[in-house]
């Protein structure tokens, strides 16, 4: 069963800005799915429509088989949203915010209080339950929005850049928490700019650009389409006078190392040999972490080139 089915979804804003050009998307129940794309690509508009925060121009959205237009309340009851920007009442306490959200979903007070305690404890916010929300740190505010989104125990959790602006420790703890939620059977759709996040958590991804789904598949499939890999080299020797090496793009790094783009059909033996000839010794080598980002940049580049040819 699909947790989410979108057909021909289009959105044109009142001033004529076309945000979505009739996208189709299916997300299976139980998936941990990533929706990727640059700023202004249409990700947030798509999420806005799915969560009833944006009016669509045309198309259909179905959540666990409930049509958003015809069975609005049933569809809404299935969704939990962690938005990109802080959107809770800054004057209310942590517990009050979670309890109110439970109330909007019709969860009786006593049951809501139990669930609020459970999720606030799981997200490390129980000690802060009586604190006014504006006094929380950035990471705590993000976690509060996750607790709020989970209090009605949705079957589909949508997170719009949930770890933006939080430190790596908080980010990792949130990843573990989301993996646990997904294991419990909650379908998760994630948009993110930290692309290693998608690589680490998600099996399937869709890439959206200029309001269209331009790629759709598993993370592995998408990475296979990447013809160039980027390596970070730690080196010794004088890199200032480094001569260009044909077939490779080499950029010096601020830490004295080198960043090298290696086409897949070139290999690295000739690169090492050339560097050695120029008196540079490679001490260590690692894959640059954001391969998906690289893929995305190349994808956008490819699209631009084909548009120019056309």
């Amino acid at each position, binding site marked *: 069963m699909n947790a989410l089915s979108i057909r021909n979804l289009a959105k044109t*804003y009142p001033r004529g800005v076309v945000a979505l050009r009739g996208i189709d998307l299916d997300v299976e129940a139980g998936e941990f799915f990533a929706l990727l794309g640059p700023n202004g690509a249409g990700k947030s508009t798509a999420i*806005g429509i799915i*969560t*009833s*925060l*944006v*009016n669509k121009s045309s198309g259909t959205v179905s959540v666990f088989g409930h049509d958003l237009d015809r069975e*609005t*309340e*049933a569809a*809404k*009851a299935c*969704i939990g*949203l962690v*938005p990109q*920007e*802080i*959107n*809770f*009442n*800054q004057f209310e306490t942590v517990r009050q915010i979670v*309890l*109110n*959200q439970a*109330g*909007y*979903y*019709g*969860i*009786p*007070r006593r049951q809501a209080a139990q669930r609020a305690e459970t999720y606030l404890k799981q997200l490390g916010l129980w000690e802060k339950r009586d604190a006014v929300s504006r006094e929380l740190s950035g990471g705590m505010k993000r976690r509060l929005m996750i607790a*709020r989104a989970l209090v*009605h125990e949705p079957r589909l959790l949508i997170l719009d850049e949930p770890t933006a602006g939080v430190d790596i420790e908080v980010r990792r703890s949130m990843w573990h928490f989301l993996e646990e939620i997904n294991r419990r059977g909650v379908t998760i759709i994630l948009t993110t700019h930290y692309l290693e996040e998608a690589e680490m958590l998600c099996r399937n991804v869709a890439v959206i650009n200029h309001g269209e789904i331009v790629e759709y598949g598993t993370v592995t499939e998408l990475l296979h389409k990447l013809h160039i890999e980027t390596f970070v080299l730690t080196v010794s020797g004088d890199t200032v006078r480094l001569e260009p090496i044909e077939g490779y793009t080499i950029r010096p790094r601020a830490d004295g190392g080198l960043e090298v783009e290696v086409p897949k059909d070139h290999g690295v033996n000739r690169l090492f040999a050339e560097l050695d000839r120029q008196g540079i010794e490679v001490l260590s080598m690692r894959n640059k972490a954001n391969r998906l980002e690289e893929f995305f940049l190349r994808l956008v580049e490819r699209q631009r080139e084909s548009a120019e040819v056309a």
Partner: protein
Amino acid sequence: MPSRWQRNRVAFETIVIKEVTRFTRIWVQTILPSGITTALYLLIFGGLIGQRVGEMDGHTYMDYIVPGVIMLAIITNSYGNVVSSFYGTKFQRHIEELLIAPVPNWLIVAGYVAGGVARGLVVGLLVTAVAAVFTDLSFEHPLLTLLIATLTAVVFSLGGFLNAMFARSFDDISIVPTFVLTPLTYLGGVFYSITLLAPFWQVASLANPILYMVNAFRYGILGVSDIPIVLAFAIILVFIGVLGAAALILLERGVGVKS
């Protein structure tokens, strides 16, 4: 899984409790000022100036203005509560908490209106208590008085809701109260009987909806009114119908709350 009725009941209670908690938490800003203003009105207009004005419609001037002053407080507070609360909800974007939830639009309107009515009536009670210090207050038709107060609070809560939907800045939520609501209220017979006006202005005053509410309320307390009570009720109900429908249609379209 709760039934739709249970879910809606809990959601409605949640909105109302949230609204009541909000205005009681900041009672110094929301409840107290009307008590002080009323005491000043009654002291200066009712006590000092009123003694020279003499009787109006067979009542002392102090007694005559008390219903209007109570109604003034109900109108401004019910309107002010909803306009500031709902606009604040939009401004801080926590309106999204409601929009994503399975809460029908009519319930959102009803919840905010109930909050506005609650504040209007709480302040109305306070003002009535203050008035009781200055005059021997008795109610000719107590149930009618309560009904008119409640329905008027509904009308102005709906007005505040509509104002908040269209408002794009904090300036926009003060324009209507300052330039429309206050003049209409003061010209709505709070401090005088329209029989004192020239014939043209008497007729012109009949276009002011607040006149009907103030007079109906005065009828409930003193038993006197410049206009027929049935007409007052009809006009109030028409306003509730029209403003309520407008609020629902606008919310359905997402005016001011969805892009």
